[in-house]
């Protein structure tokens, strides 16, 4: 679909049996699957996969993930989560494994005020064209702090409401500017909706994706995070701890840049 070569990585000892099994699965697939490359390497799964990403100059890493993590995993970190953070390329986390492909009907994209956002929105249009998705919602998450008015009584509430309207308008214009830079063919036949949400960054978009039952959520790559970020979660952590749908994290590809 993306005219890409698939590389399957199996972490563990190579054996005829395993290879045979994988090959037989792949044979049922289409052309791309038949041309796929199989790699067998043993070691720590995170390191192995990261190595392969670097060696093969991977553009997109696809991972299966659990929808919810338990408390222990949350703090120690599952493999998928570690990979998400460390991978040098974009990552697609799948929670809905299905033999029959479920048509992707609605994509939710973040529209944060961030230099990475323009790239993310552009990529999401590319992806939705490829997947045949007809609806994209761009969510502008605005943190409460930006309103600068604390609601105490009627007067401050009115002021806060006006401030919100202004911010919403500003964000809409900003997203519109980004949308204008995207070429028309990419946008054709796609219904675009923008929605401003005032709330916790990263959390609101995940909750929104659940409410509108989005099929795919596309996010900017997070900045570096450590253990403190998991104790005081923000942004991406909310989404990783409770995946609302399949999630694609767009990272600027280091290899492409070179």
């Amino acid at each position: 679909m993306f005219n890409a070569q698939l590389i399957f990585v199996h972490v563990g000892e190579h054996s005829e049996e395993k290879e045979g099994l994988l090959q037989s699965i792949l044979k049922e697939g289409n052309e791309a699957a038949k041309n796929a490359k199989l790699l067998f390497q043993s070691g720590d799964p995170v390191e192995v996969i990261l190595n392969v990403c670097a060696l093969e100059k991977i553009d997109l890493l696809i991972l299966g993930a659990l929808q919810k993590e338990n408390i222990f995993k949350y703090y120690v970190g599952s493999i998928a989560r570690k990979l998400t953070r460390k991978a040098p390329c974009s990552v697609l986390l799948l929670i809905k494994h299905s033999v029959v492909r479920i048509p992707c009907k609605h994509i939710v994209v973040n529209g944060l005020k961030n230099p990475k956002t323009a790239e993310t929105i552009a990529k999401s249009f590319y992806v939705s064209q490829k997947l045949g998705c007809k609806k994209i919602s761009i969510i502008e998450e605005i943190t409460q702090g930006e309103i600068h008015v604390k609601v105490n009584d009627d007067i401050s509430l009115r002021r806060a409401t006006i401030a919100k309207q202004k911010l919403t308008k500003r964000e809409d214009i900003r997203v519109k500017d980004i949308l204008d830079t995207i070429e028309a063919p990419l946008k054709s036949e796609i219904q675009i909706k923008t929605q401003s949400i005032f709330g916790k960054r990263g959390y609101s978009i995940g909750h929104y994706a659940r409410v509108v039952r989005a099929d795919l959520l596309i996010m900017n790559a997070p900045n570096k995070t450590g253990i403190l970020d998991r104790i005081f979660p923000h942004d991406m952590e909310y989404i990783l701890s409770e995946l609302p749908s399949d999630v694609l994290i767009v990272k600027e590809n280091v290899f492409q840049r070179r």
Partner: protein
Amino acid sequence: MANKQTQFQSLVNSIPKNIFAGFVVSLIALPLGLGLAIASEAPPIAGVISSVVGGILVAILGGSNITITGPGNGLVVVLLSAITTLAAGDLQQGYLYTLAAIVISGILMFALGAFRMGILSDFFPSSAIQGMLAAIGIGIFAKQLHVMFGYTNVQGSTVDLLIEAPDAICNFLFDNHNNFIAGIIGILSLLVMICYSKIRNRYFQLIPAPMWIVVFAVGYSYYYELILQQPYPVSKDLLINLPDKVLSNLAFPDFSILLQGNFINVVISITLISSIESLLSIKAVDKLDPLKRRSNVNRDLKALGIASSISGLLGGLNVVTVIARSSVSANNGATNRWANFFHASFLILFIVLFQEQLTRIPLPALAAILVYTGYKLASPKNISKIFGIGKEQLVIFLTTLLVTIFTNLISGILAGIVITFVIHTILNKSIGFFIRNLFKPNVLMYKEADEKENYYVSVVNFCSFLNYSKLKSKLDQIPAHEDVIVDFSRCSFVDHTVMENLHNYIQTFTSKGGHFEVIGLDLHGANTNHPFALRRISASKRMASRNLTKRQKSLRFVAQDFNWSYKPSRSKPFQFLHDFSYFKTKKIRKVKNIMTNGECTLFDVIYTEGEFIAKQVIRSTMIHVQLKSPLPLFTLDRDGLFEFFYHLVGYKDISIEGHPDFSKRFFLHGHNQKEIETFFTNELVLFFESNTYYHIESTDNGLLIFHKERLASVKEIKAMSDFAMRLRNTIFKKAKKTKSLQEC
């Protein structure tokens, strides 16, 4: 400028009204202030000082509108134990220590306000607060009952005092003693309090009951002095003792035990109770405001803190917002803070002018007022009301009540919080569920981006007193004249505290012309039929169908109004739904809340999409219209959400000739283009163009209409059914016309 002028004018115009309200309130505040101070074993004037300082300062600095401030009921028990224990029984010294505690707690309250901790009161389960208030009521009742019969020297814990009460009554009735007249005055005063509300005479009601008691009691003493010319038969120590020169004999706090444990304990108790009492009162009084303003809670807390500190420095009690006096003020036409100010001014006037008369008030008369308030706080009616909400609420209530009575207020409220949490975990059979989700944000609010622009609030996981503040902070950002829908369908547990508070929001929004609705609770079971009962998804199905939610009840009401029939649930889903292409790929689980008039059937439908891991449960409200004349198969849609799907099946967008605007705005799909084009006549196109948008599908004899893939609020349901009826009539008329044309 003109605006300012009119504002000033209306302010001036409002002054007479507020002077009157302030006057009436001062009539009730005077006896209450004296009584509350005496009940706390403080000098009687301390209560009046608190009212005066509170009234003036909070009127100037406060952030609420029609509240009245002064000494509060809730603090009597804490202050009493502080005054009697801090100096090991020396009441005068204990009073001075307590004044110091009041000054410090005022500073703490100011800090609470400054750090915007007004939300603190949201973390207490409402049944626990009820239990605490009842315990305070019992405490006041137990002590003052003895005083009412003329025994001022009884000591002991609340329990001891209650056990001794029957003895006191027997003593009073059968022993000959010189307190008899005083006791009779007490009993008569109590009768006045009880009967006051039952006498609906305009002139009698002009003066509040406590003032009548004072008037009667003082008049009685004059009757002895002037007409009978006999000494007053009530002994001197049963009369109010005021210092000769009120203003020069003010007490000054003693700060010498600042760091002792029991002093700190008292400070914390006073701060806790006074902030909870004030916050609850402010919330309640806001509902009485004729101008529907919203109080600035944090600013009010700051003002109350300053007032408390200054009152303490002058020898007065704590200043809190009081509900009873505020409601009297509102009933007598108060419109702004001037009422509070004038109430304080009149109090000063009374003290200066009637000092001599005040010393004639017998203590039993004041005690009777307090016995009545204590009884009101802990009346059996409250208990039966809480039992009506649910057995578990009664357990919380009683735990808090008993622990408070046997230990102290802080342990009581802590016990209430712990038992509430334990009950919640038992009901949900999971502690991890709460711990895991406690600190996660769980509320999403946004303005729905369609023509109606209502606010949509979705809550996930659970919503209880532990995280209610998250929901509250979102809801508080919505102007009360807007439309709000709160969706709990993704939330598996909602507790009583939240249900009660949501009810308050519904009232506020209704009174300000907005609309506030709660949806998604119809599947949650509740143990009782009470609208505030806690609801959880884990309850059995039987329970869910037995106790209807507020939404279900109003649906039943709407159905009655329209002459439709209503059924909360149905064992099997409708067969006809499967004929609609929308449901081709979906599995219908359940149909609930069915309203029908034979032709139009409105229902909530719960269906799933996908299977196994990809499975998603969707709830939506739809309406089905049965039609006699055959219809072409079509789908009318606006936002193109379903367009993708129809592309796959080979449908394409059909445009109706002569209506480019309609074709642009709506996506119309169908197999038989000709039939559809003839079906969409000018009238029908006009009808769709001029009405709100719905997604519409047809089979050969029915239409399916729905709006969003979520449940609809009652207001939306009304609009939907109206739309469906009119659509049916339009199609019906059209069919008739074509028929008559054919016949011609």
